[in-house]
């Protein structure tokens, strides 16, 4: 798999996910980007350490979903499986704990 820095150079100006506005930092809509900002730190495409937080609505139930990138070499070439989603508990204590763990794992 190509180096993250190299991928970032390819993708930073040229990506279908980039959204630009006047007087606003450049943003991206790619999955796995926590802040939606278009920079290497948060990139869901180029970076090996991917962290994304979204809400998913299935019927009436709305759940919090955390996206991370699988570390397995074999999964890097498999687009469907490379991003791993886990649900985040909505409990006051449990949720933030899970997030902390995920952050340090990143």
């Amino acid at each position, binding site marked *: 798999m190509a180096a993250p820095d190299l991928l970032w150079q390819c*993708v930073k100006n*040229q990506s279908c996910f980039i959204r630009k506005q006047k007087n606003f930092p450049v943003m991206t809509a790619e999955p796995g980007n926590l802040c939606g900002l278009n920079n290497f730190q948060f990139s869901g495409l180029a970076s090996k350490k991917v962290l994304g937080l979204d809400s998913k609505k299935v019927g009436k139930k709305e759940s919090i979903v955390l996206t991370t990138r699988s570390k397995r070499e074999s999964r890097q070439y498999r*687009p469907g499986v490379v991003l791993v989603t886990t649900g985040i508990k909505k409990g006051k204590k449990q949720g933030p704990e899970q997030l902390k763990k995920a952050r340090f794992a990143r």
Partner: protein
Amino acid sequence: MATARPVVSIYNFENPSEKTGTMPMPVVLQSPLRPDLVREVHRDMAKNKRQAYAVKPKAGYDTAAASWCTGRAVARIPRAPGGGTHRAGQAAFGNQARGGGMFNPTTVWRRWHRRVNVTKKRHAVACALAASALPPLVMARGHKINQVAELPLVVSDGIQSLTKTKQAKETLKKLGCGEELQKVIDSKSIRAGQGKARNRRYVKRLGPLVIYNEDNGITRAMRNIPGVECAHVDRLNLLRLAPGGSFGRFVIFTEGAFKKLSDIYGTLKSGAPKKKGYTLPRAAMVNADLSRIINSTEVQSVLRPKMERYTHGIKRNALKSKELMEELNPGSTERKAVQQKASQKGTPEYDEVQKKKKARIEESKKYNKEHKKGDETFYKTLMKAFEAKAAADAAKKAAEKAEDEEDEE
């Protein structure tokens, strides 16, 4: 660039959830990524299919117009000759004149085409192929590949024998391209601009590029599926691999085609067997992973220890912060404490101060008595001297005056 060549699975075209085999990835697909090169070559290659356009050579000059020169109360621009019609006497030839020629007429002998070095073109194709094997790049180009099992997607050779479009569509959907195909269908819209009136009415996105080795019906099966294009391995076109100059096209290889890539391009050592005198491009930096390099033991072990950065923190004012004052001027708090105590009656410090004060005053009195009283004070000696002189002067004056009186008498 991987040190060991990853192994790519081949999917059964009839039942894409199962794999019929594996193959090591051809070295082409590990070429260095050069978006700048691809963009440059694409830009020039794209110019090669242009058709010339120009205005007629005689446009605007097909009159016998001549200037009327000066003296006739009209501007000096050439005018159409003759009479009996509105056209007579009207301005002609200039770009500003109605019916005149244009400024800098477009010509057919404009340099429409560009030649690109063969090696450059080959490098660009290798690079574009490599990009098509990387999910982030294919995603960034805009292809919907979330359902696709693996990239590069290699399908067993049976797909080359498909004859019916319906079957082809089914196969593609089973391979995970359903989202992609739907994206193309949804994207069909009327072109913006004059092209819509020039037989280019609709635009739509591009879908997968199917690269095959033997055409046993596949091109005809695939050609009516919107967005899908087919290409033979031997004749790969950069304009198809990197449409618009952006690499990362979603590519589907057939087994035969995938195998043939190694035969055509070879390795860095062997050179390309089917392309005379050509070797695949080498990366300027074999290991481009900067963070890995920086954090490696080889580098870390040779670094000097990290410099401690002096952080100032918040600036404290010594006049306000007693601790800081003590740091800067050790003993200042003690001194202050002593001074404080000295103003409180009854403390030994107070007595000390008073004693000193008394002694000082005594001294002063003593001194004053000696030097400031009596006849030897500064003032008195000064006045004495002055008086002496004053008396001497007065005597002199009196003597002069007496002389003058004498003279007058």
